[in-house]
């Protein structure tokens, strides 16, 4: 199965999970997602997700000037974001358990 299709459904959770580690900016967020194994994640998809989560009131943002180049916008989780991550994690775990059970039955 094309993993990009799976990724669409969980990218929000993945982004929230990375930001839960600590605030960061877009380029670094993409890098961390890829290092985590989501190698096919699209840069534009991450920025779109950040924009949607930020507009939904789940993120904080802060412009941090950089001596090396353009200012970077750092994103972080606010309380609503943390709460959303908790709910998404719970949903994902339930979903993953169901799927694992189904796939296990299939093997047996």
């Amino acid at each position: 199965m094309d993993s990009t299709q799976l990724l669409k459904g969980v990218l929000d959770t993945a982004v929230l999970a990375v930001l839960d580690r600590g605030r960061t900016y877009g380029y670094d967020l993409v890098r961390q997602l890829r290092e985590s194994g989501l190698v096919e994640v699209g840069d534009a998809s991450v920025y779109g997700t950040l924009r949607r989560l930020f507009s939904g009131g789940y993120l904080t943002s802060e412009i941090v000037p950089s001596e090396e180049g353009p200012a970077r916008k750092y994103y972080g989780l606010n309380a609503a974001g943390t709460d959303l991550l908790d709910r998404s994690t719970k949903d994902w775990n339930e979903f993953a358990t169901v799927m694992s059970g189904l796939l296990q039955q299939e093997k047996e």
Partner: protein
Amino acid sequence: MSLTLSPIKTGYLGRVKIALADLSAEDLEEVTQDLEAHLAELADGEVETVLGTPEAFVYEFRASAGLDRETSSRLANTRAWVRQRETRLTRSAGWIRAERHWSRVHPAWLWVRGWLGVSLLSVLSNGADSFRAFPIPTIGNSTLLGLVTAMLATWVSLTLARQRKDTFASFLSGTYTAVVALLLLVSLANPTSHPPTQDFEAMPQGLISEGWNPVQNIYAFDTDGNSIQVLLYDHDGRPLLNLPSYVYEEAEIAPLEERHSTDFGQVHFERDELGRMIPNLYPLQTWGYSDYGELVPSRPPSLGFPGSDGSEGGGTEEENVPTTVATSDVN
């Protein structure tokens, strides 16, 4: 990482901004802040490799961000791309130069386009007969109607141009030009477009019978199947044998030749006391080839009509006689 973006990255950012032009300034600023920092991390050569084209980037961004009415709209991205190209084109030196030249000839064009439109219509419908009194086009076989139509078309052209501030008139004026341009293209694409009668002169063999065979002669018979004496001439006074024109031309320039060859046999023209060919003097002496390849005097066919000999159809009694350049039976 450099403090300022390279031209390639600036160009990329610019195209993204154009493709996102429908967003509010605030939203656009949010997006470009992220992207600007991202671009700064990349080398020039890997910008499109990593991010895709600006339009693809925006497409993916919109889909992921769940953006309003134009989410996932390829059309919007295409529109943005076209807008950008249009801007680039209209700001180019060549375009500006062309506009300057066009502004000089534009008044003349407004005068000419009405006449040109009517003239092209005339050319397309009448072919070579479209200008009986140049420059007045012929409309419906009438030069007067062509004059009136051309004047009316010129008046409409100038009137539309004067009302340039009126959006609808401006639209009509543009349409007018487009129609004339279209007619011009059609005319250029069909330079020989004219009624089939105009082709008659160009046909080297004259009349064409069924099966595209050239008509070699015309014989007259009465209703009983008897040949009758009729002298037929073409508009140049030549006997209507419809020989290829080169036969007459060769005969005129080579009077010493007794006989002049055709594709189908030979012909001899009578001459006056000064040796000049008399092309319209009957009977012409013509010879055709027999089945044995011998030159024999040509004779007209004898047709059988229903009732004339009791048989059906057109039987012949001299079927072996070549009829291609046979003389008319006027002896």
